[in-house]
């Protein structure tokens, strides 16, 4: 059972929807921070660099806002 618990705790077992939402939340906070330090809107590459993710992955994750979640829920559940 130790084996199975370790498997369950592994990050790989969390749902991608949660992981994307976390990335979106971090991105919103980082965007504010960078905006202040740069004195202008950060670009996607700058934001992705700060978050250490691929720009394309970030572009996809940014859709995962709260409103979208609830939209998904009404459509799919």
């Amino acid at each position, binding site marked *: 059972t130790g084996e199975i618990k370790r498997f369950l705790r592994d990050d790989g077992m969390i749902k991608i929807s949660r992981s994307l939402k976390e990335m979106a939340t971090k991105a919103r906070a980082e965007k504010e921070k960078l905006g202040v330090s740069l004195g202008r809107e*950060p670009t996607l590459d700058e934001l992705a660099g700060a978050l250490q993710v691929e*720009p394309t992955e970030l*572009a996809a994750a940014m*859709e995962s806002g709260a409103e979208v979640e609830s939209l998904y829920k009404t459509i799919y559940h």
Partner: protein
Amino acid sequence: MESKKKDRAGETVHLEFESHSHNEQFARVVSAVFAARLDPTVEEIEDIKTAVSEAVTNAIIHGYEKEIGVVHLDLTIEDKSLTIVVRDEGAGIANVKQAMEPLYTSKPSKERSGMGFSFMEAFMDEVTVESELGKGTEVRMVKRIGSIFPL
């Protein structure tokens, strides 16, 4: 895809999907992921996603109405511009000029504000519409990235 022997100037990806309402979101995200290559700001990405949403929703709601058809989305990058073409083979529009007027809608309701084309025009640098009744509609939009803060 005709682009097999295309000029070296731009690069196009072509997407086809069924006119289910959940695909509006899929089209938004794919457009954002493709546009990522131009290193846009978050605001520019939001503009692009809003315009794609409006055009794809129109294809789904007005173009195909109750039937399920194929929506075509072409995304082209050329220098610092992104061209987005949304095409349906649905109902078509009798009077494009009238359809593009702010607040004009053929389906007055809570959800249809008649502002779809106005949003596309507000968020993109160019919008052109070609349509033929019974044949379908093609909306072509161009967004120039980095026009405010050239690097």
